[in-house]
């Protein structure tokens, strides 16, 4: 069983509530105690006066001199619960109701209960009258020649408890209100005090959504080290991806340069008359490209963490296409919703679009159209050309890695399957079909939309 609540607010609230309740209970108890003492002291003064007068009436031989008895006014009213008694070996004299002491009287020094003994020597005590009413008593031991005479005067307890009850009710009520006020203040304080945590959480969500790169540094003192650690972690992640990609670039360089040299040697006349060796080099190249392309892809599962604006990526890549295919006057029509962004890594987007656009440029006769628009929680990007297009059978084959449908130029058969694989890694899809307007290839790339910027 867990005693501590899971939430910090719950914990802080529980601790604060317990402390407040304990403090209020202690306050109620001690205020009640003081009040009681105050009320009882008034009664004690009357009882002690009576006890003193009675003790003076006790003769040296242990008998009571009735003539010397003076009763305070309250002791004259019988039935109100005020009473006294004098008891010695020589006899017992009483006035009012008989009182049975609940506790055996202590003769020794020291207080009978928590009340301090009176300086005159009277000791406090509690008892019950013969009518069953609780009685507060004071008693004094008067030594006589016959033995100790015990003088007891008692007053009804209710005279003390009634005003106490009257005072305690508003006191407890105001303490309760005070407790509620404190609880409310604690809740407000927690909401205000824990707000930086919620702000930090929002900042982290922004990083995941690609809206910002770092957690803001101006955090409260307690959160500043956490923010610094988070930023370091973000940087470390980025550095690791960068490192992995640099490694891929080095790997590409290391693998392809000798491959290029080998291919160059084979091109020299007579070395490879049937072209079989060159085909093998092309195959090796294709496999290297395929695996490097996959290695370059951002780690799967990292989607929804970045945003890439499509218009910029498309404009960068069409500039590349115009350079690579400079001799072909291709008309390009681009229609992209402004600020449209997808939740995918920019390099992955470059790879997908680069391969699709390159394919379109390679096969088109005169024009390529690129259109992108939001479609629910996804973005649909359509690339169409007016080239010969592909048959259904050819479309199936085009998405098989290594199947090269295009034997012209330096085209390699891995572009479309890589684009498809990256689309799926990023939670999207690639569908090939026939363009309705141009009759060429129509490639539809669907990718999850990025959350809008702040």
């Amino acid at each position, binding site marked *: 069983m867990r005693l501590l609540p899971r939430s910090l607010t719950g914990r802080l609230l529980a601790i604060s509530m317990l402390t407040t309740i304990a403090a209020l209970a202690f306050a109620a108890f001690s205020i009640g105690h003081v009040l009681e003492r105050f009320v009882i002291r008034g009664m004690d003064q009357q009882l002690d006066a009576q006890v003193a007068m009675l003790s003076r009436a006790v003769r040296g031989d242990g008998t009571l001199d009735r003539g010397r008895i003076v009763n305070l006014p309250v002791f004259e009213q019988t039935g109100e619960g005020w009473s006294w008694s004098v008891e010695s070996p020589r006899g017992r004299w009483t006035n009012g109701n008989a009182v049975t002491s609940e506790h055996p009287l202590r003769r020794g020094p020291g207080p009978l209960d928590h009340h301090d003994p009176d300086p005159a020597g009277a000791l406090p005590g509690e008892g019950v009258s013969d009518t069953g009413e609780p009685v507060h008593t004071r008693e004094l031991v008067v030594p006589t020649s016959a033995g100790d005479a015990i003088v007891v005067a008692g007053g009804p307890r209710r005279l003390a408890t009634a005003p106490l009850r009257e005072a305690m009710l508003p006191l407890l009520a105001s303490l309760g209100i005070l407790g509620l006020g404190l609880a409310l203040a604690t809740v407000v304080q927690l909401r205000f005090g824990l707000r930086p945590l919620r702000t930090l959480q929002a900042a982290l969500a922004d990083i995941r959504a690609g809206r910002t790169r770092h957690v803001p540094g101006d955090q409260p003192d307690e959160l500043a080290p956490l923010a610094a650690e988070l930023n370091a972690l973000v940087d470390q992640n980025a550095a690791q991806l960068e490192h992995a990609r640099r490694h891929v670039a080095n790997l590409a360089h290391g693998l*392809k340069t000798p491959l290029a*040299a080998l291919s160059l040697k084979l091109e020299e006349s007579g070395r490879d008359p049937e072209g079989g060796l060159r085909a093998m080099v092309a195959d090796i190249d294709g496999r290297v490209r395929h695996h490097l392309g996959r290695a370059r892809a951002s780690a799967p599962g990292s989607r929804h963490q970045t945003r890439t604006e499509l218009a910029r990526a498309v404009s960068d890549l069409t500039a590349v296409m115009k350079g690579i295919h400079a001799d072909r006057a291709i008309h390009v029509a681009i229609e992209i919703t402004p600020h449209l962004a997808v939740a995918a890594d920019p*390099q992955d987007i*470059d790879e997908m679009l680069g391969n699709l656009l390159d394919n379109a440029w390679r096969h088109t006769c005169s024009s390529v159209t690129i259109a992108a628009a939001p479609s629910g929680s996804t973005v649909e990007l359509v690339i169409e050309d007016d080239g010969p297009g592909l048959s259904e059978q050819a479309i199936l084959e085009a998405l098989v890695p290594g199947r090269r449908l295009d034997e012209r130029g330096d085209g390699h058969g891995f572009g479309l399957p890589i684009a498809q694989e990256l689309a799926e890694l990023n939670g999207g899809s690639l569908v090939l079909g026939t363009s309705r307007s141009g009759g060429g290839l129509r490639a539809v790339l669907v990718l999850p939309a990025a959350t809008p910027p702040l």
Partner: protein
Amino acid sequence: MRILLVEDDAMLAEGIARALRAESFVVDVAANGEDGGHLGSTELYDAAVLDLGLPRKDGVTVLREWRAEGRDLPVLILTARDGWSEKVAGFKAGADDYLTKPFRVEEVIMRLRALVRRAAGHAGALITCGRLAFDAQLGTFEMDGLPLKLTAFEWRVLSALMLRKEVVVDRGELIERVYERDADVDSNSIEVIIGRLRKKIGAEMIETVRGRGYRVTAGPA
């Protein structure tokens, strides 16, 4: 056509240079980014073939520096980096074309010829001047529709003149475009080549402009 080849793999550089020379290109080879950058900044080239993964200075940096200096020679990037993001970065740095390894050497030659031709302001492959026709894409000359046989030196001089037909080409510049950097150049050799060309295509086609250079012309303008 004088080409700067910046490639750190010696075997590959040697192979490309040999293939380019066989097509009458003048080729200077640099094996690292620093040397290549320096050559491109100080010498006159019709185009450069630039690797990206170069020792001492990265190819993209070399290219950026050339562009910052105002060097506008066409640059073909020839690299193992085949990511599209890398291609975007290459073009943004100022590349004119991009080819990934492994490649077919004919592809390099075709692209270089296209770059040089476009840089000279010719949209189409065929450049004609009177009876003389130059296919800048295939690198062939025809005279009255018949193939013209030329030596490597003759081809270099005539292609340089044809790319800028009707314009006077400086003699010193012509020499730079015909000989490799460390070649021993005889001061009269250009005149000898011009003389041989005049015999093949007709003296009136190549005009000597005293104190300046030569121009190929279809006749008095």
